[in-house]
């Protein structure tokens, strides 16, 4: 496990605390880990490259 410090906007932190208070997560650390995991799932390098390839194809060779 790695430990790092990060600054969060106040509003984001309030939302995070609310999730814990409402009982959806055991603590704030769990929320951050889950949020980061899900972000990384949808922002894989190859996926972002694929979307850029689509942009290039449409931009340079598209019909509309």
């Amino acid at each position: 496990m790695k430990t790092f410090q990060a600054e969060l906007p106040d509003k984001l932190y309030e939302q995070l605390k609310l999730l814990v208070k409402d009982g959806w997560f055991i603590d704030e650390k769990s929320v951050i880990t889950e949020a980061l995991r899900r972000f990384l799932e949808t922002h894989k390098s190859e996926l972002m490259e694929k979307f850029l390839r689509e942009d290039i194809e449409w931009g340079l060779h598209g019909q509309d």
Partner: protein
Amino acid sequence: MGKTEHPPIKKVVLDAGPIIHLDELDCLDLLLDFKELLVPEAVWNEVTGHRPAAFNNPRIAFEKSFVHQKMNSQITTFCYSLDLDAGETEAIILSSSHPGLILLTDDAAARLAASSLSIRAYGTIGVLLRAVRRQQLQPAEVIDILEELSSRSTLFIKHSLLKGIIEEVKKEYGAQG
């Protein structure tokens, strides 16, 4: 900009990213090539909060569109499962209710959702490159913009990929680049 006039051709739904990034690059005029510019209310609010000046150009007729998330609960749930924010979710819902239009977003998760729902989606880079094909900008102008992308905008593209895109433009348009 605006070397040759072309008729507007397509209806698009806009997420906040392309509006903000194109404005940062002083390229919002490129959107004039689209017939209708639909901006979901949540996206409208997001842009108003982060970059209100983007809506100040009277030539660009952004159209605020109201989206009822509750009426599209399946898509809303799907979007939430991908952690899309309110603006991205409304953009996906709006796009799904207008078959054949194009969604403009720079968010990878939103594009993933669009792809799953058979919605055509492109980003700021696509709009910039299209500007060459549509003769809105010269190849050299787009190359300059791409080279200055990281210093002029908050859109982040990995350096090696950006270099590859510039090479593609040069290859496609030869000496003009």
